């Protein structure tokens, strides 16, 4: 096996005038050096899965051809006997660069005379999206209170603890490629590899082993996957590449970064009448696999959980000389939630109302579902019940009293809340295709009973720690009437597993994937009962299945086991009913009629140290409704983890760049992931309102924890800083930023005075 290492661009923007690899290629143990110049002239750029109407093309390749647009862009691949030798040789590659002026922010990219990333574009705007309902201008004119604010969401990223990894084996005799990759989209990756490499899909097998966390970052088709496959073809040997952490900060998609200018209109009684927003997404150097999907989603989520009849949004996706932006748990939802919930807090403050009460007055009531908002149709919800439960769980009124007393003692204590809704069960296919998504929104479940009576579930979904494998096994076991340990789940192998319409993302595995598997298991169950009825000489309707034993109701001694059924189906077809085909398996498809919409409330209680600016938690409540819970332990684990990532976004994480678009983060010393000391243990409770759209009623919970937590923390910090009249408009709320809000870090500080601080 050979080991690949990549030479990456040290420049945010430059032309490649020449590359000399001769010294590198001469190092003993080096088997191949590949550069963009080795790609044929018609070699295709990296394909995209999301092609929104009117978006511009931002072609980029497995290896940069003649120009680089961000620090970290892959320029050359060295395949060697060990990564140590590969890294030695990489040092010897001589590149003649011609540095070009770079843009480091979306606003800089829009400025008059800004350098262009793509020479044939008139500006740096890759796409624009607009949506409108009602009459926002009238709502603003007639409002009793209008609040306007600019919000800055920092660039962060999913940062799975295991980086990416690719292993390619190209059987040059059979001309077949096997590619092991840490991906959330094996089938999409197979199709894209086929398009780029010109090898038919059936000759490509993509295998996703257990993955060490993805959180969206691996819902992308990366240049390294193509380059490593090419290296395997060129050398005729297996080639492995393992991303190291330094690379991961540069070469795995970034997320979240937006500037949102938003306005909210309300009546004196707290009823919100309109919202408008201008969203600027910093896409980095190119539109990646999901295009500007997250920015688009931010724009259409700007009415959140509220009955807001008038709304107008515009999203612009802008290219800059930074790592391409892509998916991270929550997509564009945490940003929208942050902006809307911050505005609701401001409305409450302006009206002198309790922020919980303002929310209550605007929640979509249960009898309005299905509710059509700015773009989506929300399926179901009991929002007010959820709010009440959360307020009670955290003892909201008690905290308000305690807060008063603590304030009098000079302590900075704040209570903040946010209400979120999450888009799950992503589908249906027709809607996704019409919106520009290449892949569908369905999922296919394959259940096979084996000769010994155990069941195997095959799914194209990928396990990266979410635990859906367990959920699918439970669904299958329940449908078949067998014990959980009688079910094996096989995931993420394009040669074994059915196509998953979209991929493993958008909190759709339990809902869409689960419904497909349950459907297939039900089909298998029907045949099991038919075989058992024949063997027991009983009617199907008289049979019951309990722990793998099929018996006649009322006569438990008349039974056959699943092993008997398995044997009959495969080894003794003579035992089958006349005319029945041998075999015992089913493949079923589920394409949801609409998306499902779980929701929840975060309430954070924080205290701020006025000397250091450090934020710490005194309490935290999280109440949510994700429909039927397949496995409460796993659901809670998802909430815990998502919440920790949301708190990371709120307080610690930031992928900073300097004005020349050079990254200032390269290690975990600069990029602070929260540790066991920082994350509060939430009081956690559930409501269960089964989704009317999904058989089984599951909604999905993968992303929920990330969506509302940043806004709740921001709300609590702002509340704690009431004595300073501070307004929280940007994240992360590092100690330095908090001191800035207090006024202790003055002009000239490295942290810009927070927008809106008065």
């Amino acid at each position, binding site marked *: 096996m050979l080991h690949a290492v990549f030479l990456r661009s040290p420049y945010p923007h430059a032309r490649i005038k020449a590359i000399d690899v001769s010294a590198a290629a001469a190092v003993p143990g080096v088997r191949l050096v590949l550069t963009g110049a080795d790609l044929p002239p018609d070699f295709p750029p990296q394909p995209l899965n999301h092609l929104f109407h009117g978006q511009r093309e931002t072609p980029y390749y497995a290896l940069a051809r003649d120009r680089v647009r961000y620090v970290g862009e892959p320029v050359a691949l060295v395949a060697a006997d060990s990564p140590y030798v590969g890294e030695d040789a990489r040092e010897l590659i001589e590149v003649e660069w011609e540095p070009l002026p770079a843009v480091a922010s979306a606003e800089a990219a829009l400025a008059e005379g800004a350098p262009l990333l793509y020479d044939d574009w008139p500006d740096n705007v890759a796409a624009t999206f607009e949506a409108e309902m009602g009459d926002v201008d009238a709502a603003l004119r007639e409002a009793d209170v209008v609040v306007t604010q600019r919000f800055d969401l920092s660039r962060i990223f999913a940062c799975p603890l295991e980086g990416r990894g690719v292993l390619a084996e190209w059987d040059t005799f059979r001309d077949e490629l096997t590619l092991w990759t840490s991906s959330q989209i094996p089938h999409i990756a197979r199709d894209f590899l086929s398009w780029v490499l010109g090898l038919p899909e059936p000759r490509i097998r993509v295998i996703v082993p257990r993955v060490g966390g993805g959180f969206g970052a691996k819902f992308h088709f990366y240049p390294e996957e193509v380059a490593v496959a090419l290296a395997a073809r060129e050398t005729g040997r297996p080639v492995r590449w393992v991303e190291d952490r330094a690379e991961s900060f540069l070469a795995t998609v970034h997320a979240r970064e937006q500037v949102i200018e938003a306005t909210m209109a309300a009546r004196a009684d707290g009823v919100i009448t309109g919202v408008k927003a201008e969203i600027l997404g910093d896409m980095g150097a190119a539109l990646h696999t999901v295009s500007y999907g997250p920015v688009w989603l931010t724009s259409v989520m700007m009415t959140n959980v509220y009955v807001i009849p008038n709304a107008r949004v515009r999203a612009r996706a802008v290219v800059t000389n930074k790592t391409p932006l892509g998916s991270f748990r929550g997509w564009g939802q945490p940003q929208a939630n942050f902006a809307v919930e911050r505005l609701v807090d401001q409305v409450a403050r302006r009206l002198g109302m309790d922020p919980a009460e303002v929310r209550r007055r605007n929640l979509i009531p249960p009898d309005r579902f299905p509710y059509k908002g700015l773009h989506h149709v929300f399926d179901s919800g009991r929002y007010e019940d959820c709010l009440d439960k959360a307020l009670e769980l955290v003892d909201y009124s008690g905290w308000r009293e305690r807060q008063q007393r603590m304030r009098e003692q000079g302590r900075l204590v704040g209570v903040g809340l946010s209400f979120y809704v999450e888009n799950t069960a992503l589908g249906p296919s027709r809607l996704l295709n019409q919106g520009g998504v290449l892949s569908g929104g369905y999922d296919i479940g394959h259940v096979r009973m084996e000769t010994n009576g155990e069941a195997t579930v095959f799914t194209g979904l990928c396990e990266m720690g979410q635990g859906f494998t367990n959920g699918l096994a439970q669904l299958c076991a329940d449908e078949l009437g067998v014990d959980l340990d009688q079910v094996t789940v096989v995931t993420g192998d394009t040669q074994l597993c059915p196509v998953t319409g979209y991929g493993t993302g958008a909190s759709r595995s339990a809902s869409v994937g689960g419904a497909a598997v349950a459907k297939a298991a039900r089909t298998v169950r029907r045949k099991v009962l038919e075989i058992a009825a024949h063997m027991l000489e009983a009617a199907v309707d008289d049979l019951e299945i309990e722990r793998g034993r099929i018996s006649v109701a009322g006569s438990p001694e008349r039974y056959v086991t699943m092993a008997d059924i398995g044997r009959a189906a495969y080894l003794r077809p003579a035992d089958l009913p006349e005319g029945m085909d041998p075999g015992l398996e089913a493949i079923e498809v589920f394409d949801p009629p609409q998306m499902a919409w779980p929701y929840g409330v975060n309430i954070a209680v924080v205290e701020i140290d006025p000397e250091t600016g450090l934020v710490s938690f005194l309490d935290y409540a999280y109440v949510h409704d994700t429909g039927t819970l397949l496995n409460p332990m796993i659901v809670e684990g998802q909430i815990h983890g998502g919440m920790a990532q949301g708190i990371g976004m709120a307080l610690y994480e930031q992928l900073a760049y300097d004005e020349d678009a050079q990254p200032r983060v390269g290690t975990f010393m600069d990029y602070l992931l929260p*540790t*066991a000391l920082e994350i509060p243990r939430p009081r956690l409770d559930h409501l269960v309102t089964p989704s009317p759209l999904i058989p089984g009623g599951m909604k999905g919970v993968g992303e929920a924890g990330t969506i509302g937590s940043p806004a709740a923390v921001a709300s609590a910090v702002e509340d704690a800083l009431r004595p300073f009249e501070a307004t929280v408009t940007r994240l992360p709320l590092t100690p330095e930023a908090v001191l800035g809000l207090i006024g202790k870090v003055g002009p000239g500080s490295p942290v810009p005075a927070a927008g809106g601080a008065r």
Partner: protein
Amino acid sequence: MTVRLAESCSLRLRVNGELVERSVEPRRLLADLLREDLELRGTHLGCEHGVCGACTILLNGEPARSCLLFAVQCEGAEITTVEGLAANGRLSVLQEAFREHHALQCGFCTPGFLMTATYVLAQFSGVPDERQVREALAGNLCRCTGYHNIVDAVRAAAERLHGTPTRKEA
């Protein structure tokens, strides 16, 4: 510039109780020796600069980052990796507690947490309180769990081990 490949050094150490004799390049990381040469792939590399803790092993009984050690620094050392925790096919009390408390999701950070916590448990004669456990684990990063279930698992293991305070996981 020319690349000069370093000569190999001979190395003797014990890994999970077994004597290992190898000839390695001086620059070879202990983590690579364990993972690639000895095929003990439970030790995970999450950052390669000593912050995330996924590669934690016990070096002469104390936690150390195998990504920050050269293999040759471990001449004569006694090393325990995550593969050394289970004995005779049975998970250690701590490992069992991780499983019961859903203390891992993707599992990538888990070996490092297990090694750190194995050491921590050996330091306490009773059950550490939540704050003590959190402080002890603060040198290990987890991106999936939000940590609460890990903390619970460590405390549950401590409770189960209570009464045999000096016990060391094999």
